[in-house]
């Protein structure tokens, strides 16, 4: 049976999807700005963060209103809860993208420390994870979501490797410290973006199955093995 307030849930869903799209674009643009030294694009990324903040607020308000007035149960309840949590994650993704964009502006003023290889690689992985997690929102697919969780290790590994690499740069050539630190923070941001993508994937599993797979040791081990 259709209910008169079904439209409210539809708006809620589309707001969340819109947020996902914006967040993914932000990360992509931030990476682009970093790699090409495009200051304008970086500024765009910073400016666009407001939209994400707005969307997060709207989703929260709508979720609270829906829970208060419509007494959602089962799938609906999970959707509303997951919507709130995922919107928070996406907003954080946006913040990280902004942070990357700001650093990109600063780095653009200086010669590159080394060719951008690892950062685009890990960023692309993070973007793929984010896209896959959001895809699970549209088509409930636990396998795919669990795969996202497992991929978090890849990003973590690149981050660690970059950390070691950049540390040695700093030790060997103190003049690179500023740039190396910026890159280190960018790497950390990307690693966080991947973490948020992981969270979203876990939330999607909860949405489709009411299963909480967070901090599941078995899954983590499987990730290492894979």
């Amino acid at each position, binding site marked *: 049976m259709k209910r008169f307030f079904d439209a409210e849930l539809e708006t809620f869903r589309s707001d969340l999807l819109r947020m996902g799209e914006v967040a993914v674009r932000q990360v992509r643009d931030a990476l682009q700005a970093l790699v090409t030294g495009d200051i304008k694009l970086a500024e765009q990324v910073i400016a666009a963060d407001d939209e994400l903040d707005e969307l997060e607020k709207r989703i929260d308000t709508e979720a609270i209103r829906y829970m208060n007035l419509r007494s959602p*149960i*089962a*799938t609906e309840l999970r959707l509303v809860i997951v919507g709130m949590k995922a919107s928070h994650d996406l907003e954080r993704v946006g913040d990280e993208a902004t942070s990357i964009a700001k650093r990109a502006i600063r780095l653009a003023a200086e010669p590159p420390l080394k060719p951008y290889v690892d950062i685009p690689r890990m960023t692309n992985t993070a973007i793929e994870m984010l896209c896959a997690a959001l895809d699970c929102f549209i088509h409930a697919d636990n396998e795919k979501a669990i795969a996202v969780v497992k991929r978090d290790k890849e990003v973590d590994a690149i981050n660690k490797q970059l950390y070691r690499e950049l540390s040695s740069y700093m030790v060997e050539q103190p003049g690179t410290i500023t740039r190396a630190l910026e890159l280190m923070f960018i790497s950390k941001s990307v690693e966080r973006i991947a973490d948020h993508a992981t969270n979203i994937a876990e939330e999607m599993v909860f949405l489709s*199955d009411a299963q909480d797979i967070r901090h599941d040791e078995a899954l983590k081990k499987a990730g290492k093995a894979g």
Partner: protein
Amino acid sequence: MDSTATASVPRSRPLATPPASSAGAERGATLIDIKDLDFYYGAKQALFDINLQIPDKRVTAFIGPSGCGKSTLLRCLNRMNDLIDGTSVKRGAIKIRNVDIYGRDVDPIELRKRVGMVFQKSNPFPKSIYENITYGLRIQGVKNKTRLDEVVEKSLRGAALWDEVKDRLHESGLGLSGGQQQRLCIARTIAVEPEVILMDEPCSALDPIATAKVEELIHELKKQFTIIIVTHSMQQAARCSDQTAFFYMGKLIEFDATHNIFMNPKNPQTEAYVSGRFG
């Protein structure tokens, strides 16, 4: 996860476990075992192949749309259906403590002393509060005044009604408010110390405050009694019960821990029903 909630096998291990599984050894063990039950009103089949294990000292909620058979099943449990002409259990059995209650050596009168019932419409007898409570014992032949007095106080305290009525025990039970009347009926039921209390939509005629009081009472009573409650209120089932059974068209569609039924029902019909999108 209760070993009892196995009507539909969960796809995966639910991580949310309802609390209170740690109390006494008896608690949670199967008390009522319904097996392959087919029940008929005359030629019309009302229940189809019901399999259900109801645990001891827990609250089990029966939910489902009107005419789905939940009240019928409830009334099977103390054989109140016997009062209706032409009813019969054609197949299967209901066992309470491993005794088939439709067996030849079971007297429904004795059964009903052990399996009490609270009705949808509160039905205090047009007698005094005292007489209402002692009715069950008096028909069993208890005459000792001290004993009766004790039971009246104990039952009224048990039904959280003592403080409200202790000064007017000899006034008519019908002078009480709707919620008090329903609690009087509960007190009357617990006065004969049954094991199981069946509640057939006990709050459907009550205002929210009275409903809340009855719900509080149910929460208290489950320490001593096994409670089965039929309700049309999803929120009530969610608040009060430990496990929930969803019925539709005389069939048991899903039986699981209440948390699972309301968070992640396995059956789309259950989902549609609990989220108010049925039909």
